């Protein structure tokens, strides 16, 4: 039995790697590749007549493997299937950190899963509220309702778009410049930021197109995404490298936080640094930069 610490609602989630929960060879040590979160899939990767064996494999993995600092999320089957409630029970019984709600379209979808999770937490004696939720928006309706989805539960830590299904609904195909998803990505990001939760981009499926992957990552970063869903370990390093702050940003963040704490201790709330006004509004951003720098091995100090 590997007890996992209480999941943190807000933590670094640059990379979420999908893998089939039914494949012990994949899930036994997926954490060695260094992604921030792993996403054990009970949904599309698992054939309809294998759902129970996948749950069995998932439960034993959660109970016997030490995933360390890597967050463990499970993608459950959609609410239009007969599987999702049993999926939720397995996640909670096994002690997964969070659940990804597939094909989420409304606040009531989130609330339904939230209620099922609460029931399961009671059933298995887990701390109530421990299990986190995120939603995958896969349809135009999901995107339209993004804000109510993001704010539907205290368990919600983020939303992600699922490009494949969404493109089908929109009668479009993958475009290298991202024009196919630009509106949906934008609306989802605005909703997530308004709700104060994280936002993740969809998978990039052509593993041989390194250039295309990098171009999409650059756009993701420019738009303000927190991270990306991945399908192969080789995609992890490019994301971590691209999402890493620059040396200059790290130094600046360090100076802002040090100076702010110094000034605050002396009773000063607003001051200038290098000719720029600094107040408490700058602190969360600077702290986020340092946390990111720490995860990237660029910062070893004690400010965060």
């Amino acid at each position, binding site marked *: 039995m590997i007890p996992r610490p209480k999941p943190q609602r807000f933590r670094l989630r640059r990379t979420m790697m999908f893998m089939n929960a039914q494949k012990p060879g994949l899930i036994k*040590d997926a954490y*060695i*590749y260094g992604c921030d979160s792993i996403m054990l899939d009970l949904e599309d990767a698992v054939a309809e007549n294998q759902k129970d064996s996948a749950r069995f494999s998932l439960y034993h993995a959660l109970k016997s493997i030490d995933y360390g600092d890597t967050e463990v999320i499970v993608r459950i089957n959609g609410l239009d299937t007969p599987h999702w409630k049993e999926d939720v029970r397995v996640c909670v019984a096994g002690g997964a950190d969070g659940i990804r709600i597939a094909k989420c379209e409304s606040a009531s979808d989130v609330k339904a899963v939230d209620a099922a999770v609460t029931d399961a937490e009671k059933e298995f004696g887990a701390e109530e509220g421990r299990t986190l939720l995120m939603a995958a928006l896969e349809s135009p309706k999901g995107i339209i309702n993004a804000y109510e989805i993001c704010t539907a539960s205290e368990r919600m830590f983020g939303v992600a778009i699922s490009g494949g299904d969404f493109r089908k609904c929109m009668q479009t195909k993958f475009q290298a410049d991202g024009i196919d998803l630009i509106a949906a990505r934008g609306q989802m990001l605005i909703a997530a930021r308004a709700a104060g939760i994280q936002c993740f981009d969809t998978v990039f499926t052509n593993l041989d197109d390194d250039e295309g992957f990098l171009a999409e990552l650059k756009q993701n970063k420019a738009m303000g995404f927190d991270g990306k869903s991945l399908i*192969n*370990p*080789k995609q992890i390093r490019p994301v971590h490298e691209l999402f890493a702050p620059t040396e200059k940003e790290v130094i600046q963040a360090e100076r802002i936080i040090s100076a702010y704490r110094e000034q605050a201790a002396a009773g000063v709330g607003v001051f200038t640094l290098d000719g720029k006004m600094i107040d408490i509004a700058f602190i969360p951003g600077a702290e986020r930069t340092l946390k990111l720098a720490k995860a990237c*091995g660029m910062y070893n100090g004690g400010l965060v």
Partner: protein
Amino acid sequence: MINAVKRDIPDYLLKNGKEVYQGKFYMDGKYVKKASPKTRIYEKPQESKLVRSIAEALRQCEAKDGMTFSFHHHLRNGDYVADMVMKAAVEELGLKDLVVAATSLGDANNLIADYIEQGKVVGIQTSGIRGKIGEVVSKGMLKTPAVIRSHGGRPRAIEAGEVHIDIAFVAAPTSDCVGNCRGTGGKSNCGSMGYAMTDAEYADKVVVITDTLVDFPNYPASVKAIDVDAVVVVDSIGDSGKIASAAARISKNPRDLMMAENVAKVIASTPYFKDGFSFQTGVGGPSLAANLFLEKYMDERHIKMGWAIGGICGPMVELLKKGKVKKVIDVQDFDIDAVNSINQTPGHFEMSASQYANPANKGAFVNKLDFVVLAALEIDTDFNVNVLTGSDGILRGAPGGHPDTAAGSKCCIIVTPLTRGRMATVCKHVVTVTTPGDCVDVLVTDYGIAVNPLRSDLIKNLDDAGIPHVSIEFLQEKAYSLVGTPDDLQWEDKVVAILEARDGTILDVVRQIKPFKI
């Protein structure tokens, strides 16, 4: 007597000045006398050395009971020659009590395994032992213990006269009528013939067996007519599909790639990684993939590799063609790209196993190596490596150049997954020590990197580069926590194989395994 790697070597093996392993560099600086080879006088004008059959060549060379025949594995699993010769010796000439001295033995030599069982072959000297031969020797069916030497240790023993070869049989992709041989130009090409060279120089008699007779002179020759007694032409010397693999491709397995990337990171963190550095890597998944990541670091730092040695395959030839490595010198070519490149691509040369790895010469290439990247079946917490015996105690591997390159190089990196199926690769005690731990510097696994505490300089290099590393004990404990603690193997007293260190001292012995019972 307990030796320097804590192995108990039976006293009865320590006769005629034989010593147990005393640690690396024990013999360094010592002068030794070479055995003088035998030749014959040829004064008359010479037409041809062709003889009609292998049996006739054996008769002409006065083959008799108790002789030592040598073979070479440059045709690898596609080799027909060793079995053809042994068949003629045993079935046609009725010889017995024979000793096979090979550079490696494996799946291509099942007939020799039968002759061991029949008592016709009573001794084996080799650098690799796989397949059925490994199994029959492990069962104790060979009359005398097999002697296993590294690729460098074997020519050392031959040149010292510790191994006396009565007749060397050289499989030649092409030969002329007097025995100038090359590894290319025929129908069973292998590229380098480096393993056969020392044998041809030191054997009393040399028989060349080819399937492609070419005009005299077949030049530049790998084995030269000056050492050859007879040439036999046969229909086929080997199965070309098994001699050289199709072009080696770099692994796409994410685990291999991650380990390979870490190997390159470690290399790039050391002071030896500078313009003109030298390098050898294996052909296993993560070892070969290290090429890919190393190239990236070379480009970043604007440096080139000075030279590479080894068994060579396509990806290294690519680097040569791109001008990123200046010279490639090899004893063996693993794939079709390397076979087609040797002596063709400018800068790609052949060398003998002695030149490659023999500690008893004055300029072995391994002693000039900066980095070697090697695999392992097992590695223990003293960094001792086993590449010879399986976890079941059966002989199924090859020291090859492992101990030579590990000892000679400045930085020896072992790369292996932490577990293979239910087996812990990183363990408390390896079954057999084939490469002593004091020659091994860094271990890269999928669960972390460990540096030999003897190398505090490398530990500092890794720390300065921000490369995380752990103790090897941590890795061993992690492995056991994943797959469980293995039970000890159960051995009989009988020694079935003696493992010589490259300097000729005894590094370890392999005993007969007791049949497994639940």
